[in-house]
């Protein structure tokens, strides 16, 4: 009914967090040397936060369209059809947001955490090679 609002809210919060992280990181950069001897810069954390934001914003945007398609969201006030239908529909909508919406946000975040772990492992491998040289 409006499950996409949960990941969209997370996207808004995380975009602010990313902007703050970008400011804190400033121009600091960690340099590493790749296997073939190329000098490279390690990806800053704010950029990795950007992965999460892109997934959240992308998914929310296309899901918002799906809700528009099914008439659950309308482009005029009160925007959510359930809000017009009464308290029963609203409680059903909130229930769906609490189950499906939260699960969507959790899955996206879990996928991002896996991406972080994999990238960290790859970075460690590159740093080990650098210290071995």
């Amino acid at each position: 009914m409006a499950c996409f609002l949960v990941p969209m809210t997370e996207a808004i919060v995380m975009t602010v967090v990313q902007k703050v992280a970008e400011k804190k990181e400033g121009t600091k950069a960690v340099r590493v040397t790749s296997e073939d001897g190329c000098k490279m810069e390690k990806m800053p954390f704010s950029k990795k936060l950007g992965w999460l934001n892109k997934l959240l914003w992308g998914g929310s945007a296309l899901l918002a369209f799906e809700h528009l398609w099914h008439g659950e969201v309308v482009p005029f006030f009160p925007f959510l059809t359930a809000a017009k239908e009464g308290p029963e529909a609203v409680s059903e909508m909130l229930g769906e947001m609490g189950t499906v919406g939260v699960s969507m946000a959790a899955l996206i975040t879990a996928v991002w955490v896996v991406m972080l772990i994999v990238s960290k492992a790859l970075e460690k491998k590159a740093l080990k090679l650098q210290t071995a040289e």
Partner: protein
Amino acid sequence: MTLLVSVFAAIICTAIWYKTAPKSEMKVGLLCWLFWGSSLMWLVDAIFEYAELGAAYFTPEPADMLNDLFLGLSVVALGMIIWIIVLLIKDPKGVIKGKLFRKKS
């Protein structure tokens, strides 16, 4: 069906992105994020629907399937519209800038 269309779009875009990486002149990465994000969200939707309907989830009515296919294709079209707008605004190859400004000798 919508999930399936979105997953196929995500896989195709990721393959194209990988083929053209590390160059990102066409900003295909944006399409990857859009379609993977929506695919993950629809996967959750599908899991909840499966929990409710059971095996009946895999045998939808033809009319529902057609509507879902139509929706899936519309979602891909919307994703591509977002991508083309971002591509033209960011203009990584400088084509639009080149059309708007002439070099003065």
